[in-house]
Protein backbone atom coordinates (compact mmCIF):
# COMPACT_ATOMS: atom_id res chain seq x y z
CA UNK A 1 0.00 0.00 0.00
CA UNK A 2 2.01 2.98 -1.15
CA UNK A 3 0.63 6.29 0.11
CA UNK A 4 -0.12 8.60 -2.82
CA UNK A 5 -0.99 12.25 -2.74
CA UNK A 6 -4.67 11.38 -3.14
CA UNK A 7 -4.36 9.30 0.01
CA UNK A 8 -2.81 12.23 1.81
CA UNK A 9 -5.65 14.42 0.64
CA UNK A 10 -8.20 11.78 1.66
CA UNK A 11 -6.60 11.64 5.11
CA UNK A 12 -6.74 15.43 5.47
CA UNK A 13 -10.40 15.42 4.41
CA UNK A 14 -11.32 12.72 6.88
CA UNK A 15 -9.41 14.52 9.64
CA UNK A 16 -11.20 17.79 8.82
CA UNK A 17 -14.52 16.01 9.06
CA UNK A 18 -13.57 14.39 12.37
CA UNK A 19 -12.59 17.79 13.73
CA UNK A 20 -15.85 19.31 12.56
CA UNK A 21 -17.79 16.46 14.17
CA UNK A 22 -15.83 16.83 17.40
CA UNK A 23 -15.68 20.62 17.49
CA UNK A 24 -17.94 20.93 20.49
CA UNK A 25 -16.40 17.98 22.26
CA UNK A 26 -12.89 19.43 21.93
CA UNK A 27 -14.09 22.86 23.01
CA UNK A 28 -15.82 21.25 25.95
CA UNK A 29 -12.59 19.55 26.99
CA UNK A 30 -10.81 22.89 26.66
CA UNK A 31 -13.47 24.55 28.84
CA UNK A 32 -12.51 22.36 31.75
CA UNK A 33 -8.81 23.08 31.77
CA UNK A 34 -8.30 25.81 29.18
CA UNK A 35 -10.12 28.60 27.43
CA UNK A 36 -12.86 26.86 25.51
CA UNK A 37 -11.51 27.31 21.99
CA UNK A 38 -9.58 24.23 20.90
CA UNK A 39 -12.39 22.73 18.84
CA UNK A 40 -13.18 26.06 17.26
CA UNK A 41 -9.51 26.71 16.53
CA UNK A 42 -8.92 23.35 14.86
CA UNK A 43 -12.13 23.46 12.91
CA UNK A 44 -11.37 26.97 11.64
CA UNK A 45 -7.89 25.84 10.59
CA UNK A 46 -8.98 22.71 8.80
CA UNK A 47 -11.87 24.43 7.09
CA UNK A 48 -9.22 26.75 5.67
CA UNK A 49 -7.08 23.75 4.74
CA UNK A 50 -10.00 22.21 2.87
CA UNK A 51 -10.40 25.45 0.97
CA UNK A 52 -6.71 25.52 0.11
CA UNK A 53 -6.28 21.86 -0.92
CA UNK A 54 -7.67 22.18 -4.47
CA UNK A 55 -4.95 24.73 -5.28
CA UNK A 56 -2.17 22.24 -4.40
CA UNK A 57 -3.82 18.91 -5.14
CA UNK A 58 -1.73 18.48 -8.27
CA UNK A 59 1.52 19.10 -6.42
CA UNK A 60 3.86 16.68 -4.67
CA UNK A 61 3.12 15.45 -1.15
CA UNK A 62 5.73 17.75 0.41
CA UNK A 63 4.13 20.80 -1.17
CA UNK A 64 0.69 19.70 -0.08
CA UNK A 65 1.77 19.17 3.51
CA UNK A 66 3.72 22.43 3.66
CA UNK A 67 0.69 24.28 2.37
CA UNK A 68 -1.38 22.66 5.12
CA UNK A 69 1.24 23.78 7.66
CA UNK A 70 1.27 27.37 6.38
CA UNK A 71 -2.51 27.50 6.35
CA UNK A 72 -2.70 26.25 9.92
CA UNK A 73 -0.06 28.73 11.09
CA UNK A 74 -2.05 31.56 9.52
CA UNK A 75 -5.54 30.58 10.61
CA UNK A 76 -5.47 28.66 13.87
CA UNK A 77 -3.57 30.86 16.28
CA UNK A 78 -3.32 29.90 19.94
CA UNK A 79 -0.88 27.21 20.98
CA UNK A 80 -2.18 24.62 18.58
CA UNK A 81 -1.71 26.78 15.47
CA UNK A 82 2.07 26.98 15.52
CA UNK A 83 2.32 23.44 16.91
CA UNK A 84 0.21 21.65 14.32
CA UNK A 85 1.53 24.13 11.77
CA UNK A 86 5.06 23.06 12.52
CA UNK A 87 4.01 19.43 12.47
CA UNK A 88 2.78 19.73 8.90
CA UNK A 89 5.59 22.00 7.75
CA UNK A 90 8.13 19.46 8.98
CA UNK A 91 6.19 16.57 7.52
CA UNK A 92 6.34 18.51 4.26
CA UNK A 93 10.10 18.92 4.53
CA UNK A 94 10.49 15.15 4.92
CA UNK A 95 8.30 14.44 1.91
CA UNK A 96 9.52 17.18 -0.41
CA UNK A 97 9.06 16.27 -4.08
CA UNK A 98 7.56 12.87 -3.23
CA UNK A 99 4.50 11.70 -5.16
CA UNK A 100 4.26 8.47 -3.23
CA UNK A 101 5.44 7.16 0.12
CA UNK A 102 5.90 3.78 1.69
CA UNK A 103 4.47 3.37 5.18
CA UNK A 104 8.04 3.52 6.48
CA UNK A 105 8.62 6.80 4.62
CA UNK A 106 5.44 8.05 6.19
CA UNK A 107 6.55 6.97 9.67
CA UNK A 108 9.78 8.89 9.33
CA UNK A 109 7.93 11.95 8.02
CA UNK A 110 5.71 11.75 11.10
CA UNK A 111 8.80 11.41 13.25
CA UNK A 112 10.29 14.58 11.76
CA UNK A 113 6.97 16.31 12.25
CA UNK A 114 6.75 15.34 15.91
CA UNK A 115 10.35 16.34 16.52
CA UNK A 116 9.62 19.74 15.01
CA UNK A 117 6.52 20.16 17.13
CA UNK A 118 8.38 19.16 20.29
CA UNK A 119 11.28 21.47 19.52
CA UNK A 120 8.83 24.32 19.19
CA UNK A 121 6.62 23.54 22.19
CA UNK A 122 9.30 22.14 24.49
CA UNK A 123 6.82 19.74 26.05
CA UNK A 124 7.76 16.19 26.97
CA UNK A 125 5.78 13.05 27.55
CA UNK A 126 3.81 13.44 30.77
CA UNK A 127 3.33 17.21 30.51
CA UNK A 128 -0.32 16.64 29.54
CA UNK A 129 -0.20 17.89 25.96
CA UNK A 130 -0.67 16.58 22.43
CA UNK A 131 2.80 15.06 22.78
CA UNK A 132 1.29 12.41 25.05
CA UNK A 133 -0.75 11.09 22.14
CA UNK A 134 1.71 11.74 19.32
CA UNK A 135 4.80 10.04 20.69
CA UNK A 136 3.16 6.71 21.60
CA UNK A 137 1.43 6.68 18.22
CA UNK A 138 4.73 7.13 16.43
CA UNK A 139 6.45 4.44 18.50
CA UNK A 140 3.64 1.99 17.88
CA UNK A 141 3.75 2.68 14.15
CA UNK A 142 7.50 2.21 13.97
CA UNK A 143 7.32 -0.93 16.09
CA UNK A 144 4.59 -2.43 13.95
CA UNK A 145 6.56 -1.73 10.77
CA UNK A 146 9.66 -3.25 12.33
CA UNK A 147 7.61 -6.26 13.38
CA UNK A 148 6.32 -6.54 9.82
CA UNK A 149 2.67 -6.47 10.74
CA UNK A 150 0.05 -5.85 8.10
CA UNK A 151 -0.08 -2.15 7.15
CA UNK A 152 -3.72 -1.61 8.07
CA UNK A 153 -3.07 -3.29 11.37
CA UNK A 154 0.00 -1.09 11.89
CA UNK A 155 -2.12 1.99 11.42
CA UNK A 156 -4.73 0.61 13.82
CA UNK A 157 -2.09 -0.11 16.46
CA UNK A 158 -0.71 3.35 16.04
CA UNK A 159 -4.13 4.97 16.47
CA UNK A 160 -4.89 2.86 19.47
CA UNK A 161 -1.59 3.87 21.07
CA UNK A 162 -2.60 7.48 20.42
CA UNK A 163 -5.94 6.81 22.05
CA UNK A 164 -4.29 5.24 25.05
CA UNK A 165 -1.86 8.16 25.29
CA UNK A 166 -4.80 10.53 25.14
CA UNK A 167 -6.53 8.72 27.97
CA UNK A 168 -3.34 8.66 29.96
CA UNK A 169 -3.44 12.43 30.11
CA UNK A 170 -6.52 12.30 32.34
CA UNK A 171 -4.82 11.84 35.71
CA UNK A 172 -1.84 14.03 34.84
CA UNK A 173 -1.11 17.44 36.35
CA UNK A 174 -0.36 19.74 33.42
CA UNK A 175 3.06 21.30 33.15
CA UNK A 176 2.68 22.96 29.76
CA UNK A 177 0.01 25.03 28.06
CA UNK A 178 -2.91 26.77 29.67
CA UNK A 179 -3.88 23.80 31.80
CA UNK A 180 -0.65 24.27 33.79
CA UNK A 181 -2.20 27.39 35.40
CA UNK A 182 -4.68 25.11 37.11
CA UNK A 183 -1.91 23.01 38.63
CA UNK A 184 -3.51 20.17 40.66
CA UNK A 185 -6.98 21.13 39.41
CA UNK A 186 -5.96 20.03 35.91
CA UNK A 187 -5.85 16.39 37.03
CA UNK A 188 -8.93 14.37 36.16
CA UNK A 189 -9.48 15.99 32.78
CA UNK A 190 -8.46 14.75 29.34
CA UNK A 191 -6.19 17.06 27.38
CA UNK A 192 -7.92 18.60 24.35
CA UNK A 193 -4.74 18.74 22.24
CA UNK A 194 -4.00 15.07 22.91
CA UNK A 195 -7.54 14.37 21.78
CA UNK A 196 -7.19 16.22 18.48
CA UNK A 197 -3.88 14.42 17.97
CA UNK A 198 -5.52 11.05 18.51
CA UNK A 199 -8.15 12.01 15.93
CA UNK A 200 -5.36 12.69 13.43
CA UNK A 201 -4.20 9.07 13.73
CA UNK A 202 -7.73 7.78 13.76
CA UNK A 203 -8.21 9.64 10.46
CA UNK A 204 -5.36 7.59 8.92
CA UNK A 205 -7.17 4.42 9.89
CA UNK A 206 -10.47 5.71 8.55
CA UNK A 207 -8.93 6.98 5.32
CA UNK A 208 -6.37 4.30 4.57
CA UNK A 209 -7.77 1.01 5.78
CA UNK A 210 -10.90 -0.66 4.63
Amino acid sequence: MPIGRDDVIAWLSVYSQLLADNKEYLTQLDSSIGDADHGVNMDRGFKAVLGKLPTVADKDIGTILKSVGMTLVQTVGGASGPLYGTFFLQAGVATANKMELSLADWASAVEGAINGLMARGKANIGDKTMVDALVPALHALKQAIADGVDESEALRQSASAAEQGMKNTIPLVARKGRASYLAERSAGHQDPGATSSYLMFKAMVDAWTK
Partner: protein
Amino acid sequence: MKKLINKPEDVVVEALKGIEYAHPDLVKVHYEPNFIYRADAPVQGKVAIVSGGGSGHEPMHGGFVGMGMLDAACPGAVFTSPTPDQMLEATKMVHGGAGVLHIVKNYTGDILNFDMAADLARAEGIEVESVVINDDVAVQDSLYTAGRRGVGVTVLAEKICGAAAEEGRSLKDVAEVCRKVNGWGRSMGMALTSCTVPHAGKPTFDLPDDEMEIGIGIHGEPGRTRMKLKSADEITEMLMEPILNDLPFQAGDQVLLFVNSMGGTPLIELYIVYRKAYEIAAKAGLKVVRNLIGPYITSLEMAGCSITLLKMDDDLIRLWDAPVKTPALRWGV
Protein backbone atom coordinates in the same frame (compact mmCIF):
# COMPACT_ATOMS: atom_id res chain seq x y z
CA MET B 1 -25.80 33.11 25.34
CA LYS B 2 -26.80 36.74 25.75
CA LYS B 3 -24.57 39.01 23.78
CA LEU B 4 -24.85 41.96 21.46
CA ILE B 5 -23.37 40.13 18.51
CA ASN B 6 -24.41 38.86 15.13
CA LYS B 7 -22.60 35.63 14.22
CA PRO B 8 -19.83 34.37 16.52
CA GLU B 9 -17.44 34.16 13.56
CA ASP B 10 -18.01 37.84 12.76
CA VAL B 11 -17.42 39.24 16.24
CA VAL B 12 -13.80 40.26 15.78
CA VAL B 13 -14.09 41.77 12.32
CA GLU B 14 -17.29 43.66 13.14
CA ALA B 15 -15.73 45.11 16.27
CA LEU B 16 -12.72 46.14 14.19
CA LYS B 17 -15.08 47.87 11.79
CA GLY B 18 -16.58 49.75 14.73
CA ILE B 19 -13.13 50.86 15.81
CA GLU B 20 -12.33 51.95 12.28
CA TYR B 21 -15.50 54.06 12.13
CA ALA B 22 -15.05 55.45 15.61
CA HIS B 23 -11.43 56.56 15.74
CA PRO B 24 -10.13 57.52 12.29
CA ASP B 25 -8.14 60.33 13.85
CA LEU B 26 -6.22 57.90 16.04
CA VAL B 27 -5.99 54.55 14.29
CA LYS B 28 -6.37 52.67 11.05
CA VAL B 29 -7.52 49.09 10.70
CA HIS B 30 -5.95 46.55 8.37
CA TYR B 31 -7.93 43.44 7.44
CA GLU B 32 -6.55 40.05 6.37
CA PRO B 33 -4.36 39.93 8.23
CA ASN B 34 -6.13 41.88 10.96
CA PHE B 35 -4.38 44.58 12.92
CA ILE B 36 -4.98 48.08 14.25
CA TYR B 37 -2.23 50.63 13.80
CA ARG B 38 -1.49 54.26 14.47
CA ALA B 39 -3.04 56.57 11.92
CA ASP B 40 0.33 58.30 11.49
CA ALA B 41 2.43 55.12 11.26
CA PRO B 42 5.25 54.63 10.64
CA VAL B 43 6.69 57.29 12.92
CA GLN B 44 10.15 57.76 11.50
CA GLY B 45 13.03 57.28 13.90
CA LYS B 46 10.83 56.10 16.76
CA VAL B 47 10.95 52.60 18.17
CA ALA B 48 7.65 50.99 17.22
CA ILE B 49 5.74 48.90 19.73
CA VAL B 50 3.54 46.02 18.65
CA SER B 51 1.42 43.90 20.91
CA GLY B 52 -1.49 41.57 20.43
CA GLY B 53 -3.30 38.57 21.73
CA GLY B 54 -6.67 36.93 21.64
CA SER B 55 -9.71 39.18 21.43
CA GLY B 56 -12.10 39.46 24.34
CA HIS B 57 -9.81 41.58 26.53
CA GLU B 58 -10.95 44.95 25.22
CA PRO B 59 -9.86 47.70 25.39
CA MET B 60 -6.57 45.78 25.44
CA HIS B 61 -4.77 45.89 23.03
CA GLY B 62 -6.53 47.73 20.19
CA GLY B 63 -7.76 50.48 22.48
CA PHE B 64 -4.18 51.29 23.38
CA VAL B 65 -2.98 52.07 19.88
CA GLY B 66 -2.06 55.69 19.36
CA MET B 67 0.36 58.41 20.31
CA GLY B 68 2.30 57.51 23.45
CA MET B 69 1.38 53.86 23.58
CA LEU B 70 1.22 51.11 20.94
CA ASP B 71 1.99 51.47 17.24
CA ALA B 72 0.00 48.37 16.38
CA ALA B 73 -2.14 45.69 17.99
CA CYS B 74 -2.96 42.29 16.51
CA PRO B 75 -6.26 40.77 17.61
CA GLY B 76 -6.70 37.03 17.40
CA ALA B 77 -10.01 35.21 17.56
CA VAL B 78 -11.64 35.43 20.97
CA PHE B 79 -9.13 34.13 23.56
CA THR B 80 -6.93 32.76 20.76
CA SER B 81 -3.56 34.31 20.12
CA PRO B 82 -3.16 35.90 16.71
CA THR B 83 -1.18 34.29 13.91
CA PRO B 84 2.36 35.20 12.84
CA ASP B 85 1.26 36.82 9.59
CA GLN B 86 -0.65 39.42 11.58
CA MET B 87 2.34 40.37 13.70
CA LEU B 88 4.64 40.27 10.70
CA GLU B 89 2.53 42.62 8.61
CA ALA B 90 1.90 44.92 11.56
CA THR B 91 5.60 45.02 12.34
CA LYS B 92 6.44 45.92 8.77
CA MET B 93 3.70 48.57 8.65
CA VAL B 94 4.80 50.47 11.76
CA HIS B 95 8.55 50.02 11.60
CA GLY B 96 10.02 53.52 11.47
CA GLY B 97 13.65 52.54 11.12
CA ALA B 98 14.44 52.30 14.83
CA GLY B 99 13.39 48.72 15.41
CA VAL B 100 10.25 47.14 16.83
CA LEU B 101 9.45 45.96 20.34
CA HIS B 102 7.02 43.06 20.65
CA ILE B 103 5.26 43.03 24.01
CA VAL B 104 4.08 39.47 24.47
CA LYS B 105 1.95 38.06 27.26
CA ASN B 106 3.25 34.77 28.55
CA TYR B 107 0.93 32.20 27.02
CA THR B 108 2.23 29.32 24.95
CA GLY B 109 0.17 30.44 21.98
CA ASP B 110 1.25 34.06 22.14
CA ILE B 111 4.88 33.12 22.62
CA LEU B 112 4.96 30.66 19.74
CA ASN B 113 3.14 32.90 17.28
CA PHE B 114 5.09 36.04 18.17
CA ASP B 115 8.35 34.09 17.98
CA MET B 116 7.54 32.94 14.47
CA ALA B 117 6.64 36.49 13.50
CA ALA B 118 9.81 37.94 15.00
CA ASP B 119 11.90 35.41 13.12
CA LEU B 120 10.16 36.30 9.87
CA ALA B 121 10.54 40.03 10.49
CA ARG B 122 14.21 39.67 11.30
CA ALA B 123 14.61 37.69 8.11
CA GLU B 124 13.27 40.78 6.35
CA GLY B 125 15.89 42.92 8.04
CA ILE B 126 13.82 44.50 10.82
CA GLU B 127 15.37 44.61 14.25
CA VAL B 128 12.89 43.06 16.68
CA GLU B 129 13.10 42.68 20.45
CA SER B 130 10.50 40.67 22.37
CA VAL B 131 9.67 41.14 26.02
CA VAL B 132 7.46 38.60 27.72
CA ILE B 133 5.12 39.81 30.48
CA ASN B 134 4.48 37.29 33.26
CA ASP B 135 3.12 39.01 36.34
CA ASP B 136 0.37 36.71 37.61
CA VAL B 137 1.25 35.58 41.13
CA ALA B 138 -1.64 33.09 41.11
CA VAL B 139 0.56 30.78 39.05
CA GLN B 140 3.62 29.12 40.56
CA ASP B 141 6.73 30.12 38.72
CA SER B 142 8.79 27.17 37.56
CA LEU B 143 11.33 26.21 34.96
CA TYR B 144 9.40 23.09 34.07
CA THR B 145 6.04 24.67 33.33
CA ALA B 146 4.60 27.32 31.07
CA GLY B 147 5.24 29.78 33.90
CA ARG B 148 3.20 32.75 34.99
CA ARG B 149 0.56 34.37 32.83
CA GLY B 150 0.88 37.90 31.56
CA VAL B 151 -2.02 39.95 32.90
CA GLY B 152 -2.50 43.48 34.32
CA VAL B 153 1.11 44.59 34.04
CA THR B 154 0.74 44.35 30.26
CA VAL B 155 -1.43 47.49 30.23
CA LEU B 156 1.04 49.40 32.36
CA ALA B 157 4.02 48.21 30.32
CA GLU B 158 2.37 49.29 27.09
CA LYS B 159 1.71 52.77 28.44
CA ILE B 160 5.14 53.22 29.95
CA CYS B 161 7.10 51.77 27.03
CA GLY B 162 5.01 53.82 24.63
CA ALA B 163 6.14 56.94 26.44
CA ALA B 164 9.76 55.78 26.44
CA ALA B 165 9.61 55.19 22.70
CA GLU B 166 7.99 58.57 22.18
CA GLU B 167 10.96 60.16 24.00
CA GLY B 168 13.25 58.74 21.35
CA ARG B 169 14.90 56.05 23.43
CA SER B 170 16.60 53.19 21.58
CA LEU B 171 15.07 49.76 21.07
CA LYS B 172 17.44 48.33 23.65
CA ASP B 173 16.43 50.98 26.16
CA VAL B 174 12.71 50.64 25.56
CA ALA B 175 13.00 46.87 25.94
CA GLU B 176 14.94 47.46 29.13
CA VAL B 177 12.15 49.65 30.50
CA CYS B 178 9.68 46.93 29.59
CA ARG B 179 11.65 44.27 31.43
CA LYS B 180 11.92 46.56 34.44
CA VAL B 181 8.18 47.14 34.51
CA ASN B 182 7.59 43.42 34.22
CA GLY B 183 10.04 42.76 37.02
CA TRP B 184 8.49 45.36 39.29
CA GLY B 185 4.83 44.49 38.74
CA ARG B 186 2.62 41.76 40.19
CA SER B 187 -1.06 40.92 39.69
CA MET B 188 -3.79 38.61 40.87
CA GLY B 189 -7.39 38.18 39.76
CA MET B 190 -10.69 36.63 40.81
CA ALA B 191 -14.03 35.84 39.21
CA LEU B 192 -17.58 36.04 40.49
CA THR B 193 -18.94 34.55 37.26
CA SER B 194 -17.63 32.73 34.25
CA CYS B 195 -17.81 34.21 30.79
CA THR B 196 -19.12 32.78 27.56
CA VAL B 197 -16.87 32.43 24.52
CA PRO B 198 -19.18 33.35 21.59
CA HIS B 199 -18.28 30.25 19.61
CA ALA B 200 -18.69 27.96 22.61
CA GLY B 201 -22.13 29.43 23.34
CA LYS B 202 -22.17 28.52 27.02
CA PRO B 203 -20.20 29.58 30.10
CA THR B 204 -16.68 28.16 30.27
CA PHE B 205 -17.32 26.97 33.80
CA ASP B 206 -20.31 26.77 36.12
CA LEU B 207 -20.04 28.66 39.35
CA PRO B 208 -22.75 28.23 41.99
CA ASP B 209 -24.44 31.39 43.25
CA ASP B 210 -22.46 31.42 46.49
CA GLU B 211 -19.01 30.62 45.13
CA MET B 212 -16.14 32.40 43.43
CA GLU B 213 -12.87 31.53 41.72
CA ILE B 214 -9.60 32.95 43.03
CA GLY B 215 -6.48 33.13 40.90
CA ILE B 216 -8.04 33.33 37.47
CA GLY B 217 -6.35 34.59 34.35
CA ILE B 218 -7.96 36.55 31.54
CA HIS B 219 -9.28 33.76 29.35
CA GLY B 220 -12.32 32.69 31.30
CA GLU B 221 -10.34 29.76 32.64
CA PRO B 222 -11.10 28.55 36.13
CA GLY B 223 -8.72 29.79 38.82
CA ARG B 224 -6.44 28.13 41.32
CA THR B 225 -9.14 27.60 43.93
CA ARG B 226 -12.86 27.81 44.23
CA MET B 227 -14.37 28.96 47.48
CA LYS B 228 -17.44 30.44 49.12
CA LEU B 229 -18.17 34.02 48.20
CA LYS B 230 -16.61 36.53 50.58
CA SER B 231 -16.91 40.24 51.22
CA ALA B 232 -15.13 42.79 49.05
CA ASP B 233 -12.70 43.51 51.86
CA GLU B 234 -11.80 39.85 52.38
CA ILE B 235 -11.41 39.31 48.65
CA THR B 236 -9.18 42.36 48.36
CA GLU B 237 -7.00 40.98 51.16
CA MET B 238 -6.77 37.62 49.39
CA LEU B 239 -5.54 39.32 46.22
CA MET B 240 -3.22 41.83 47.85
CA GLU B 241 -1.40 39.45 50.17
CA PRO B 242 0.26 37.23 47.55
CA ILE B 243 1.09 40.31 45.50
CA LEU B 244 2.76 42.07 48.40
CA ASN B 245 4.68 38.98 49.43
CA ASP B 246 5.87 38.02 46.00
CA LEU B 247 8.12 40.86 44.91
CA PRO B 248 8.46 41.68 47.85
CA PHE B 249 7.45 45.31 48.01
CA GLN B 250 9.13 47.29 50.78
CA ALA B 251 7.85 49.93 53.13
CA GLY B 252 8.58 53.29 51.55
CA ASP B 253 8.14 52.05 47.97
CA GLN B 254 6.18 54.20 45.59
CA VAL B 255 3.58 52.16 43.73
CA LEU B 256 0.94 52.37 41.06
CA LEU B 257 -2.27 50.61 42.14
CA PHE B 258 -4.37 49.26 39.29
CA VAL B 259 -7.83 47.85 40.06
CA ASN B 260 -9.25 46.25 36.95
CA SER B 261 -12.71 44.99 36.08
CA MET B 262 -12.88 41.62 34.32
CA GLY B 263 -15.64 43.14 32.18
CA GLY B 264 -18.91 42.63 34.03
CA THR B 265 -18.05 44.30 37.33
CA PRO B 266 -19.18 47.92 37.45
CA LEU B 267 -17.11 50.89 38.56
CA ILE B 268 -18.90 51.35 41.88
CA GLU B 269 -17.60 47.96 43.01
CA LEU B 270 -14.09 48.68 41.74
CA TYR B 271 -13.95 51.78 43.93
CA ILE B 272 -14.97 49.70 46.94
CA VAL B 273 -12.09 47.33 46.18
CA TYR B 274 -9.73 50.23 45.47
CA ARG B 275 -10.57 51.69 48.87
CA LYS B 276 -9.54 48.50 50.65
CA ALA B 277 -6.49 47.86 48.46
CA TYR B 278 -5.30 51.40 49.10
CA GLU B 279 -5.67 50.93 52.84
CA ILE B 280 -3.77 47.63 52.74
CA ALA B 281 -1.00 49.21 50.68
CA ALA B 282 -0.82 52.16 53.07
CA LYS B 283 -0.64 49.80 56.03
CA ALA B 284 2.30 48.05 54.35
CA GLY B 285 4.01 51.41 54.16
CA LEU B 286 3.59 51.78 50.41
CA LYS B 287 2.90 55.15 48.90
CA VAL B 288 0.29 54.91 46.13
CA VAL B 289 1.50 57.61 43.78
CA ARG B 290 -0.55 56.72 40.71
CA ASN B 291 -3.55 54.54 39.94
CA LEU B 292 -5.76 53.14 37.24
CA ILE B 293 -9.32 51.98 37.91
CA GLY B 294 -11.65 50.50 35.32
CA PRO B 295 -12.08 47.75 32.73
CA TYR B 296 -8.75 47.72 30.88
CA ILE B 297 -7.83 44.04 30.53
CA THR B 298 -10.99 42.04 30.54
CA SER B 299 -12.41 38.55 30.00
CA LEU B 300 -15.46 39.31 27.91
CA GLU B 301 -18.37 39.87 30.32
CA MET B 302 -16.86 38.03 33.30
CA ALA B 303 -17.69 39.58 36.67
CA GLY B 304 -14.70 39.93 38.94
CA CYS B 305 -11.58 42.01 39.30
CA SER B 306 -7.85 41.91 39.34
CA ILE B 307 -5.36 43.98 41.25
CA THR B 308 -1.94 44.97 39.94
CA LEU B 309 0.75 46.64 41.97
CA LEU B 310 3.71 48.19 40.17
CA LYS B 311 6.70 49.61 41.95
CA MET B 312 7.49 53.05 40.55
CA ASP B 313 10.60 55.19 40.45
CA ASP B 314 10.83 58.73 39.14
CA ASP B 315 11.53 57.60 35.60
CA LEU B 316 8.48 55.33 35.54
CA ILE B 317 6.29 58.03 37.08
CA ARG B 318 7.38 60.50 34.44
CA LEU B 319 6.74 57.98 31.66
CA TRP B 320 3.34 57.13 33.14
CA ASP B 321 2.39 60.81 33.22
CA ALA B 322 3.58 61.46 29.66
CA PRO B 323 0.90 62.31 27.11
CA VAL B 324 -1.09 59.46 25.64
CA LYS B 325 -3.82 59.61 23.04
CA THR B 326 -5.52 56.32 22.28
CA PRO B 327 -9.16 55.23 22.17
CA ALA B 328 -9.03 53.91 25.73
CA LEU B 329 -6.33 55.93 27.52
CA ARG B 330 -5.99 59.61 26.96
CA TRP B 331 -4.35 62.37 28.87
CA GLY B 332 -1.87 65.19 28.56
CA VAL B 333 -2.98 66.09 25.02
